[in-house]
């Protein structure tokens, strides 16, 4: 051995030992050795990164990711360039998943409650004891003939984990499985069912559209599939080469969202009146004879009440603007209309989404490239849990208050934080005699449980996701462990299997899968055998499975097929709004409309425990580490509120205090608060920071779709004083101000001039 080589090995040895010791201290994976790299694992070369393809679960979009792993630790997450949804991009929240994995406040092992419910005080117990206790309670319940009094509230899972949980519940003998997340696009799905006959979310082909009319769809930050749709947005603007025309974006919303900031025209319609506006545009399309489809007469009669003048008055949008939008929408091909959370969060939000689909139909956009593409049937059929009426949280709340819930499993979701207090969700959970949580963090919901079974994050787990919306074709993404569990946590699937086994009898017989990984592979083999396109893509299943792990999933190579669907007059006639959406609270004591929206960083609140996301300057306001209320400068002046003042926001359901931010791009009769802060649990980074606007909302769950009407109340504002500079309650922004002072940092070119020079040929 040469001297230089010897030194090299010594060096490597030292590094290896250090890392090994650190790893052993924290994780102690089975078979950990003092010098783990003496015989290094096959896929591990010190200093050379291994990339694992997986799926991001930071929101519901299901982007494909690549996790960069060095010496057994995840270092960086990037978008999977092969994945058809996000095509290599990844949002701020996706990047920050690593800080959930290595969060200092993760639950390190199973725990038993030692304080009051909600206090968050727990004592550690062993896995054996924890599983035995939970299985014992469940068995006791079913032995007493009360199996139907077990409730499962889980996050929304489109893959085999959701299927396994559903199988667990039906084998146990309970129909009470609710998949709940704050943002599940329930109104959008329901309206899809009404208009085009499928509740699967369609693919919005923003990339190829030339005129995009968006009703409060903030796809640049949180709506539906932000990375995928943003990719489309970039392509719509400057992609497609020299010959392609630049697409136009018009955004209708009372408060300018990030997407609104990018729009060519921002239309601040009166809150709640957007559906009326959409139908007035529809009527204008018919009246001017732009509509080329069948049944024009019937449509005209149906939409007759939405006259230009009255709609203009109701929506606070000039009649010329409505006519112009109608003209552009109908005369630009292809065009596209989308409706986001802001639209479907009013009372009767379904009507808004139905109106959007009517517009798409009248402009001829359904089933057209650059329009709305109906996705094919899902690769994995969604079970009963995905039926909208099964997903209503009132089912659980009512049952529990009536004494019909004896045990509750909360699996990876946080209803206590995301459901308004007025829903009595807290009382409902307190009524349940035994609550168990499968959780990664002690959040507001898991703090209510008697036993906590700690789960792996998605970087440590097996799983899959059948992305919704697809991209005009089905997309299946695989989740594989990129790193060994950092703490003594288990896969969620394994917990279900272990609980079934521990109860013995028929339940145990049905759940003889061994591990969730084996169950997953077996299920995929079934899929492979039944799906021709999958079978044709690889010779054997082993080959297919290996490619699946390598590519991060499976998707057909073909381009999306266009399926035309007609929206019929008969199907929509019962879903048209008679007037603008109503708001709780009378106008004299609550003069302002309150809008709440998911913030870019925090989403529904799950981002709040990441230091990166706390210090991520909010995209529109640059506020960090806290929450704020957005007030129009004129309104603020009237109420003598200045930037950074602490104000109290009151609604009929309660009040919160938070700092004011003067926001030029919001209607004077409206205020807006981002969702995500105001945690009372959820670890040192999130706890006691800012305020949670969901607390002061009325609890209104749509009777048909089950979506919460978040924008359904009025509010009043009053100045309370001013927090000490830099204190926790103060307003801190990463940018001193938002003005250019005429220095022309961001140069612009007008659309007319741009039309002369055209796009670059790249």
């Amino acid at each position, binding site marked *: 051995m040469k001297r230089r080589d010897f030194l090299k090995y010594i060096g490597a040895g030292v590094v290896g030992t250090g890392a090994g010791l650190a790893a052993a201290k924290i994780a102690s994976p089975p078979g950990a050795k003092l010098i783990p790299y003496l015989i290094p694992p096959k896929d591990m070369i010190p200093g050379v990164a291994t990339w694992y393809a997986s799926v991001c679960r930071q929101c519901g979009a299901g982007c494909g990711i690549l996790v960069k792993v060095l010496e057994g630790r995840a270092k*960086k997450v990037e978008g999977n360039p092969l994945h058809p949804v996000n095509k290599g991009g*990844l949002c701020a929240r996706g990047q920050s998943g690593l800080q959930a994995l290595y969060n200092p406040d993760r639950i390190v092992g199973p725990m038993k409650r030692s304080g009051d419910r909600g206090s968050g005080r727990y004592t550690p117990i062993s896995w054996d004891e924890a599983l035995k206790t939970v299985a014992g309670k469940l068995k006791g319940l079913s032995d007493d003939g009360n199996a139907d009094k077990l409730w499962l509230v889980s996050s929304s899972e489109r893959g085999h984990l959701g299927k396994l949980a559903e199988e667990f519940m039906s084998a146990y003998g309970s129909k009470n499985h609710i998949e709940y997340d704050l943002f599940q696009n329930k109104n959008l799905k329901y309206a899809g069912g009404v208009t085009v006959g499928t509740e699967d979310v369609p693919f919005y082909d923003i990339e190829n559209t030339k005129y995009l009319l968006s009703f409060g769809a903030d796809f*640049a930050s949180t709506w539906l599939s932000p990375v995928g749709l943003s990719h489309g947005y970039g392509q719509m603007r400057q992609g497609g080469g020299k010959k392609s025309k630049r697409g136009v974006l018009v955004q209708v919303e009372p408060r300018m969202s990030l997407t609104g900031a990018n729009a060519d025209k921002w239309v601040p319609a009166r809150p709640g009146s957007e559906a009326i506006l959409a139908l007035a545009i529809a009527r204008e399309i018919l009246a001017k004879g732009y509509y080329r489809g069948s049944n024009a007469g019937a449509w005209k009669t149906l939409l007759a009440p939405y006259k230009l003048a009255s709609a203009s008055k109701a929506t606070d949008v000039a009649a010329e603007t409505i006519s112009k939008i109608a003209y552009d929408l109908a005369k630009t091909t292809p065009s596209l209309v989308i409706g986001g959370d802001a639209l479907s969060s009013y009372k009767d939000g379904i009507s808004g989404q139905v109106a959007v689909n009517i517009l798409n139909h009248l402009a001829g956009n359904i089933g057209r490239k650059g329009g709305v593409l109906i996705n094919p049937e899902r690769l994995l059929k969604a079970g009963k849990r995905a039926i909208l009426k099964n997903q209503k949280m009132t089912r659980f709340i009512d049952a529990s208050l009536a004494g019909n819930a004896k045990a509750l499993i909360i699996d990876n979701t946080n209803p206590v934080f995301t459901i308004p207090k007025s829903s009595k969700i807290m009382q409902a959970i307190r009524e349940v005699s035994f609550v168990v949580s499968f959780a990664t963090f002690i959040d507001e919901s898991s703090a209510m449980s008697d036993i906590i079974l700690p789960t792996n994050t998605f970087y440590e787990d097996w799983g899959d996701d059948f992305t919704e919306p697809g991209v005009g074709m089905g997309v299946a993404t695989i989740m594989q462990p990129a790193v060994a569990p950092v703490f003594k946590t288990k896969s969620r699937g394994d917990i279900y299997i272990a609980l079934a086994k521990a109860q013995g009898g028929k339940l145990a017989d049905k759940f003889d899968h061994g591990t969730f990984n084996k169950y997953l592979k077996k299920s995929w083999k079934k899929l492979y055998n039944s799906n021709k396109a999958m079978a044709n893509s690889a010779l054997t299943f082993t080959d297919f499975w290996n490619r699946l792990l390598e590519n991060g999933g499976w998707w057909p190579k073909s381009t999306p097929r266009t399926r035309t669907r007609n929206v019929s007059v008969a199907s929509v006639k019962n879903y048209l709004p008679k007037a603008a959406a109503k708001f709780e609270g009378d106008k004299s004591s609550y003069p302002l409309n309150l809008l709440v929206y998911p913030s870019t960083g925090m989403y529904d609140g799950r981002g709040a425990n990441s230091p990166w996301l706390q210090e991520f300057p909010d995209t529109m306001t640059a506020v960090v580490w806290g929450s704020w209320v957005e007030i129009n400068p004129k309104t603020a002046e009237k109420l003598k509120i200045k930037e950074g003042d602490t104000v109290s926001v009151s609604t009929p359901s309660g009040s919160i205090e938070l700092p004011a931010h003067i926001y030029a791009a919001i209607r004077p009769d409206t205020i807006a608060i981002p969702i995500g802060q105001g945690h009372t649990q959820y670890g040192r980074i999130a706890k006691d920071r800012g305020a949670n606007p969901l607390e002061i909302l009325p609890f209104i769950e749509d009777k048909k779709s089950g979506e919460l009407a978040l924008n359904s109340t009025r509010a009043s504002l009053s100045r309370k004083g001013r927090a000490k500079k830099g*204190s926790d309650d103060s307003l801190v922004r990463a940018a001193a101000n938002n003005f250019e*002072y005429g220095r022309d940092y961001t140069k612009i070119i*007008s659309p007319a001039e741009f039309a002369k020079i055209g796009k670059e040929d790249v």
Partner: protein
Amino acid sequence: MSKKTKYIDPADRKTIPERIKDQLAAYRVPGYYEKFDYHWTMVIDLDRCNGCGSCTTACYAENNLPVVGKSEVGIGRHMGWLRLERYVEGEYPDVKVRFLPVMCQHCDSAPCELGCPVYATYHNQDGLNVQVYNRCVGTYTCATYCPYDVRRFNWYTYKWDTPLEQQLSPEVTIREMGIMEKCSFCIQRIRGAKDTAKDDGRRRVKDGEVSPACGQSCPTGAISFGDLNDPKSRVSILAKSKRRYNLLGDLNTRPSVIYLRRVQEPLHASAGHETGMAAAHNTIAEHGSTADTAHAIKDTHGKKTQDGGH
């Protein structure tokens, strides 16, 4: 023993300002080097950028940037190497917002490089403005000279709560108190790409083979990165765009970051710019500027705006 100096006729002697000018001229030949090996360039298409901010977080993850906390951000010690500026103009309902990602512009004639007394920041053979942490003694001169405000100073040795430190990348040095740092165009990725090219027996890195973390994560494809010496590269094509401009181009710092104008209808001329922002100006006053009643200046669009006195 001193060497005998060569006699120069007083008439031919240059004055000190002239000599400085010569030296600067020599320096300001693009590259300082005869020619850059690569000329790494970034093109940011502001018409694609939708301000989602994924680039900023990608930078935190890639480059081991510390999180400083609320009070520190409040006094301007945010450590982001890449910041997303948002500029608001106009009054409700005619409000225009524009986004601008700003990172180190890797100027070919960088003001920061002139100031450093210990050569901690210099121009390398690839046209990158690099920062040598081991040399830096923390005089803060470079940050004072930088017109883009992209240099970040470590006021403390920042710590990560266990086990957050397990995420830290071994490919990037962890900085300590008293060190200046800034965007490196992800030099570790560039080195990696060069190594891969070398291992493959190639002499040069191919176009599209390397991208900094920000460009890699960008959902809209607004950030392109590549070699300007290669006439066929994506950045070379984009750099010829009629929409191109350099940030603070009049300073003639020759940035390696090229922006492409956003396509946007200009705000109507006579719109009362001041009144709409009046309330918000109170904060600026707190941040130590003279905003509120400052004299109004006319900008290039001919509309009135206020001078913040920064």
